[in-house]
């Protein structure tokens, strides 16, 4: 069942437990709702609390959402090798893949728009810690996909205040936007 026909945008964030995958998905879904859309957020994780595979599926749609899982991914964000290995085959032809160039080696030959950025490195550089890579990735994703407006994403971050303060996360998010701007020479659609 094609997703294009139903007006759904299906997206997965994948990585390791502790990388903030679930939170990044949550911010994206909240941004979509702030932008007046329907959204769902489903998380999957193993029995371990850290280090196991973690993923969050976000579906964004103009209308109500019946089925809660993606059938073909419009976009994948992979912050770990396993996140890429396990999920890349589910991305639709021509879909978008964002990976952390430090942690993920993607073999070629896949018909997707593949974008590798030093996501964790930038988080360390801008925030002094790898915690925040999730929100950097969110910035990259929003800049490339325009699935939610930048303002809605910033509003969602400011409202949730990850870690108790909005400021570091907003910096991380904008670092993600900057990565795309620098790489492709164009800013996010505003």
């Amino acid at each position, binding site marked *: *069942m094609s997703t294009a026909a139903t007006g759904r945008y299906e997206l997965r964030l994948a990585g390791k437990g502790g990388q903030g995958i679930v939170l990044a998905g*949550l911010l994206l*879904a*909240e941004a979509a*709702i702030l932008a007046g859309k*329907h*959204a*769902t*957020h*489903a*998380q*999957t*994780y*193993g*029995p371990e609390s850290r280090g196991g595979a973690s993923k969050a599926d976000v579906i964004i749609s103009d209308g109500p*959402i*019946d*089925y*809660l*899982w993606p*059938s073909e991914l419009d976009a994948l964000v992979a912050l770990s090798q396993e996140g890429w290995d396990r999920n890349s085959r589910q991305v639709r032809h021509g879909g978008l893949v964002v990976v952390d160039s430090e942690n993920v080696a993607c073999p070629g030959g896949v018909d997707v728009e593949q974008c590798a950025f030093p996501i964790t490195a930038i988080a360390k550089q801008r925030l002094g810690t790898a915690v925040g890579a999730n929100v950097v990735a969110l910035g990259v994703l929003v800049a490339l996909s325009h699935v939610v407006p930048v303002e809605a994403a910033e509003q969602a971050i400011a409202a949730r205040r990850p870690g108790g303060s909005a400021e570091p996360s907003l910096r991380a998010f904008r670092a993600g936007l900057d990565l795309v701007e620098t790489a492709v020479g164009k800013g996010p659609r505003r």
Partner: protein
Amino acid sequence: MTATLLQGNQACVRGAIDAGCRFFAGYPITPSSEIMEGMATMLPRVGGVFIQMEDEMASLAAVMGASLAGRKGMTATSGPGFSLMQEHIGYGAFAEIPCVIVDVMRGGPSTGLPTSPSQGDVMQARWGTHGDHPIIVLAPASVAEVYELTVRAFNLSERYRTPVILLYDEVIGHVRERAELPSLESLGVVERPQPNCPTEAYRPYGDGAQRVAPLADFGSGYRYHVTGLAHDERGYPTQDPRVIARLHERLHAKLQDGRAEIVSYEGEELDDAEVVIVAYGVSARAARRAVSEARRQGLRAGLFRPRTLWPFPDAEVNVLARSARALVVAEMNMGQIVYEVERCARGQAPVFGCLRADGQPLTPDEILARLVEVRAGEAEVSR
């Protein structure tokens, strides 16, 4: 109410607080823990009491104690804890103590798959405790419906003086979705009536309105006895066969008589359906998509979605079996409600399963493939 991104388990907490729940005792377990967490945050703010107990048996015992003292009480768990609660569910049903038990289903049996969805506790919710006992089990399929049916669970438990089980799977518990919650005014809140007879005339197990006597709060001056032994109208143990028979008949009649209020379901595209899917909880969401895709392909499919699993909407399913060519039960277990549907169909239409029990959700494609197979007559008669 404005739309918010809300998690199923959080919706349960909101529903409970809005329904007047002021006591929670529990023991944390994935994938239900957010309910406990939320109740621990919310209850002190509204003058309620939260206790983390040493295990699930004690949790339900504490809830029933609070209920007898006049508080609306709830506990929440998942399969392994639900197994431990079974003895007290029977006690609550027999001693007619209102309370709400949430079971957020994960893969079983035993510790199974702590973080994966399943619908494997459906029969346990009905028959997990020993002995004949009436029970009400509600099965929401969305975050907003978790809120609605949590309020309903409290209302039905108060009205019929019975434990009510709210049964949903890990996905409905953990998924966050845009939810517009119904207003509390539209749902109503049932408060427990108190007796107004002279204390010596009080019969806590007598035949009152809707076959339920009012339940006096402990400490309010009405003295009565509560026991898991077969009991007379005053609550004292008895071996008198006539008294015991009357008790069992009344307990069963109270839910049978209240059927119209208790049994709730939803139908989609049923009028001309040649194949009807019966699905509940998260499976119904995949089924809904399969129905629209089937219709697009010219297969006249429909969906029957029980919101009340027990008592089962048997008369309604029987009507469908008379009009449809076949029934397909889509559920995430090795086959539980499929047998119930087969019983209700009474041979009027063949019943097939679309089953999955590997920790993964049923997909619209799987259900659609099964529909096509069933219509073509390719499905094995034995399912």
